[in-house]
C-alpha cells in the first residue's frame, strides 16, 4: 500500500469520524427534546464529549489528509473546482458546527446552575433550552453542508 493510499484511507476514516459524531449529536438532539430536569440534561454530557472528540478528529483529519492528497496525488490539484468547493464547504460547516455547539451548550450550563441552586425537578426554561430550534436549525444546516461535501467527493464535478 503506497503512502498516498494510506493518506486516502485516513482521509475517508476521518470523514466517517466526522459523520459519526454528527449522527451522535442528532440522537442527543432527539432524546433531549423530552428532557426537562438538570440531572437528565447533565447525564448526556459525557456522551456529548465523545461526539465532540469524533467531530474534532474528523474535521482535523479530513482537512489535513485531504489537502495532503490534493498536493500529492498526481491526477488532482488543489485549485480544481471540486476541491475548492469542498474546502469552502468545510469552512462553512466548521463555522455552523461551532455555532451549533454554542447553542446546545446553554442547556447543560443552565442545568448546572439549577443543580447548584438545589433545584433538581422539571424546569420549563431548561426544556426550552434542550429544544432550541436555533440549535436544531444550525445542526441541520451543518449536516446538509457535510452531505454536499460527500456528494462533491464522490461525483468530483469537473474532474
Amino acid at each position, binding site marked *: 500500500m503506497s503512502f498516498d493510499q494510506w493518506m486516502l484511507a485516513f482521509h475517508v476514516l476521518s470523514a*466517517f469520524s466526522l459523520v459519526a459524531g454528527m449522527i451522535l449529536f442528532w440522537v442527543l438532539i432527539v432524546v433531549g427534546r423530552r428532557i426537562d430536569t438538570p440531572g437528565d440534561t447533565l447525564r448526556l454530557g459525557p456522551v456529548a464529549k465523545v*461526539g465532540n472528540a469524533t467531530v474534532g478528529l474528523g474535521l482535523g483529519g479530513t482537512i489535513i489528509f485531504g489537502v495532503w492528497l490534493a498536493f500529492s496525488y498526481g491526477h488532482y490539484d488543489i485549485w480544481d473546482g471540486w476541491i475548492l468547493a469542498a474546502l469552502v464547504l468545510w469552512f462553512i460547516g466548521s463555522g455552523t458546527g461551532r455555532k451549533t455547539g454554542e447553542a446546545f451548550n446553554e442547556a447543560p450550563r443552565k442545568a448546572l446552575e439549577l443543580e447548584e441552586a438545589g433545584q433538581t425537578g422539571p424546569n420549563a426554561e431548561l426544556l426550552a433550552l434542550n429544544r432550541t430550534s436555533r440549535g436544531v436549525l444550525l445542526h441541520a444546516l451543518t449536516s446538509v453542508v457535510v452531505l454536499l461535501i460527500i456528494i462533491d467527493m464522490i461525483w468530483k464535478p469537473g474532474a
Partner: protein
Amino acid sequence: MIGMLALIRDDSWNLPLFVHVLGAMILVGGLVTGASALALAKDDAKLLRLGFWSLMLVSFPGWIVMRIGAEWINSKEPWKDLPDKPRWLDIGGVIADAGGLVLVVTLIIGGIGVRRLNAGKASGLLRVTLAIALVLLAAYVVAVWAMAGKPT
C-alpha cells in the same frame, strides 16, 4: 488494472456508491453513539436504553442501506467478473456480511438486556452488547480502511 478501474470509475456508479457510503456512515455513527452511551452509562437505565436503541434504530437501518448500495454497485462493476477479486473487496465484503449477522445477534442480546432492565433485573447482557458493539466498530474501521485505501 484494479487501481485504474477505481480511479476512472463510471459516473453511473456514483449514486450507488453514495448510497453505500452514506449507509456505512450511518452504521458507524449508530455504533459510536450506542457504544458511547452503553460504556458511559455506569448502570444508568436511561443511558443503557439510549445505547441499545441507537444500535437498533440507527446502526441497523444504516447496515441495510449500506448493503443495498453494495449490491447496487455489485450489479454494475466489472470486478465481479474477474477471476481474482481484489483483496480489499473481499475484506470489505466479508466484514460487511459477517458484521451484519453479528449486529443482529447483538440486537437480540441487547433487546433481552433491555427487557430485563425494564423488569428491574441486572444489566449484564447490555455489557455483552457493549463488548460486541466495540468489536463491530473496530471491524468496520478495518473495512473502511480497506475499501478506501484499497491495499493490493
